[in-house]
């Protein structure tokens, strides 16, 4: 233990954090300007995003270089592990907010608007013709929020997507086993297959969105059903995209000869993240599509 402590690597000064802070700032200003349709909104936003991308490239790059130089002790490795675990936990809680909104809408606000229990007067005073159903196709005030013509079915594309993500969970584990057995070709193969499955998932998701918007009338603004549907599946999709980018970096590094059977935390972090995305999808599938 004492030896490990002596080798704990405290990095020298770094430009990347301040670059990242400036990037976030410019991104936020750009984001608001886009929403407010101000001049240069998109340019500002893209400039901020570019700075963030540059920062991530440079920052992760220097971490990789330091790691390849062998500067990192086992103890530092554990710091990274704790960091990743708690980061994923924070992501779980972010999704929890939206699942909470879905739960509240479905079991409380919509039934209450329909006059459940003691809320009879809410019903009669606000919209007395409203009927509580789920999925909510006719909104309380259909003149303000036009509902979808039909609900999304679970046993089409969503079920296929579930299968695809579950398979990708298996293939990433296969890649991990290959890495631990120092079987490099299998590592690259399984990683590539995982990335391929992710791309298929995202394409099917994009097709589903297109279908929802064009033929089902299911949109972000079609009431609480559309809002919860698109926010939950959309944020999940965004996280799949992030996870896929991680896996691509890992594949690239695998081709560059990084990782040993003993030390490959970056791989494990990406795999954890992938399993997290997978688990969230299962909940999305059950609560958003199925039940």
């Amino acid at each position, binding site marked *: 233990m004492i030896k490990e402590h002596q080798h*704990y690597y405290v990095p020298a*000064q770094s430009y990347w954090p301040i670059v990242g802070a400036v990037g976030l*700032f410019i991104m936020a200003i750009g984001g608001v300007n886009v929403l407010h349709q101000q001049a240069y909104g998109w340019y500002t936003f893209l400039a901020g995003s570019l700075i963030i991308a540059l920062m991530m490239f440079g920052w992760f790059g220097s971490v990789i270089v330091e790691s390849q130089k062998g500067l990192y002790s086992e103890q530092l490795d554990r*710091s990274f592990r704790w960091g990743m675990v708690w980061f994923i936990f924070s992501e779980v*809680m972010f999704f929890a907010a*939206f699942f*909470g909104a879905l739960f509240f809408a479905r079991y409380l606000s919509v039934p209450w608007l329909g006059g459940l229990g003691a809320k009879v007067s809410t019903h009669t005073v606000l919209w007395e013709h409203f009927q509580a159903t789920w999925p909510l196709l006719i909104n*309380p005030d259909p003149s303000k929020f036009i509902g979808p013509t039909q609900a999304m079915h679970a046993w089409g594309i969503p079920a296929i997507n579930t299968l695809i993500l579950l398979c990708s969970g298996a293939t990433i584990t296969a890649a991990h086993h290959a890495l631990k057995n120092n079987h490099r070709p299998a590592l690259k193969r399984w990683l590539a297959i995982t990335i391929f499955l992710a791309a298929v998932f995202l394409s099917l998701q994009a097709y589903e969105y297109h279908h929802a918007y064009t033929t089902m009338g299911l949109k*972000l603004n079609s009431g609480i059903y559309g809002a919860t549907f698109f926010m939950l599946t959309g944020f999940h999709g965004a996280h799949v995209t992030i996870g896929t980018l991680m896996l691509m970096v890992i594949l690239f590094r695998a081709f560059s000869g990084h990782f040993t059977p003993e030390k490959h935390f970056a791989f494990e972090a990406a795999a954890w993240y992938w399993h997290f995305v997978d688990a969230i999808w299962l909940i999305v599938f059950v609560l958003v599509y199925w039940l």
Partner: protein
Amino acid sequence: MSTIPIEVQDHNPHHSAPPGIKRWLLTTNHKDIGTLYLWFSLLMFLLGGSMAMGIRAELFKPGLQFFEPHFFNQLTTMHGLIMIFGAVMPAFVGLANWMLPIMIGAPDMALPRMNNWSFWILPFAFTLLISTLFMKGGAPDFGWTAYAPLSTTYGPKSTDFFIFSIHLMGISSIMGAINIIATILNLRAPSMTLMKMPIFVWTWLITAFLLIAVMPILAGAVTMMLMDRNFGTSFFNAAGGGDPVMYQHIFWFFGHPEVYIMILPSFGIMSEIIPTFSRKRLFGYPSMVYATCSIAFLSFLVWAHHMFTTGMPVIGEIYFMLATMLIAVPTGVKIFNWVATMFRGSLSFETPMLFAVAFLIMFTMGGFSGLMLAIVPADFQYHDTYFVVAHFHYVLVPGAIFGIMAAVYYWLPKWTGHYYSEHLSKVHFWLSAISINVLFFPMHFLGLAGMPRRIPDYALEFADFNRIASIGGFVFGASQLIFLYIIIKTIRGGEKAPALVWEGANGLEWTLSSPPPYHSFSTPPLVP
């Protein structure tokens, strides 16, 4: 806290701080980052405080004196946001950065570069937030809680800036908390087991967990707000099947643990200071740990006690009332333990201890008014009155802020190598402790008599108490300039402080010289 014998550490003097502005912009040193956090927090405290002065000036007498009602609303909103996210939280993170590695015998924080990023996001986030004051349509004016539909349908355009600044603050807090957890779990000196950690470290471990658990919930809430405002979703709009009250549920699921985020580190500070100046070990160390954990656990189960008047089902109100009252048990354990620590101790009342004793008394008062608010039928009367304002200012100012001030006086000699002026700091303490009661105590009466919060004008019968409160407020505000002066004076010079700043103090931080070397522990210290 466990007793740790004082050993002189052999430090490597080769590493020192690089010169110039780059030292602060690019730093990976936990002490530098702690210092940045603390200065930022003090700046925000003075800014948020000057807004409070504006509020008290407007309320000095009935009628409108200085501000339009719309601007008054912006002032209360910004005061709340700046004090919570700009003053109290960064101050605690700053104290954590400075003290945690030293208290657990670590070389630095676990992830030093991310630590720097956590800090430097904050000045940008607050630039974004404060700039809204100068925008067309004004700053956010819906209170720091940002209830829908005030923030969605009726919010000013600048609300979108507010939303993104909250996102940035959330990113900063989450990364800071991840860093703190990783440091505590992974970088303790080999023989420092969890149950040997100083209580300040324990409370920060729990606080960091709370931060990681609930800041994303706030991010989710403001994201839904952003979508409702700009993309036509109907999360908080009943016309589309949503519910404005849903915002309150999500917000307070964040908001209640947030309250404990702002007080648990203060509990930790008290648990360091009171034993030192009682010259005894902390009474009931394990029960302190369990009480902290229980408070954190319960904080997730009581959020709707902020919403008793929203028309929840009665069964819900009863549940939230009882669960809320349950929190008094672990909090009572803590108060009991602090008093028992002082009991038959060899007490001395240096400034940190004065703040600690004031904390004990006034925080308990704030806790009791909290119990009053927890009673559902009584809350129907108190809700949204000055009684609530009195309650949360009693727990936040003599609770969180006095905790921070006590910590600053307690560790300032360690940070700077100089003792502060005990005479001046006592003036600061007494002025603050008296004026704060003049400021907030009459608000209880105002609230019980029915004066609503967040209004620029009021009925004539509230005039006397408001005037008293305003006078207290101005004295309290002015006294903080003494605090600023003391800090600057202590940094610039003063009586030299030895490694063991307080003779009764225990812990690893007192084994290092004052000020400690730029890199604290190059080899892990021994903890028996």
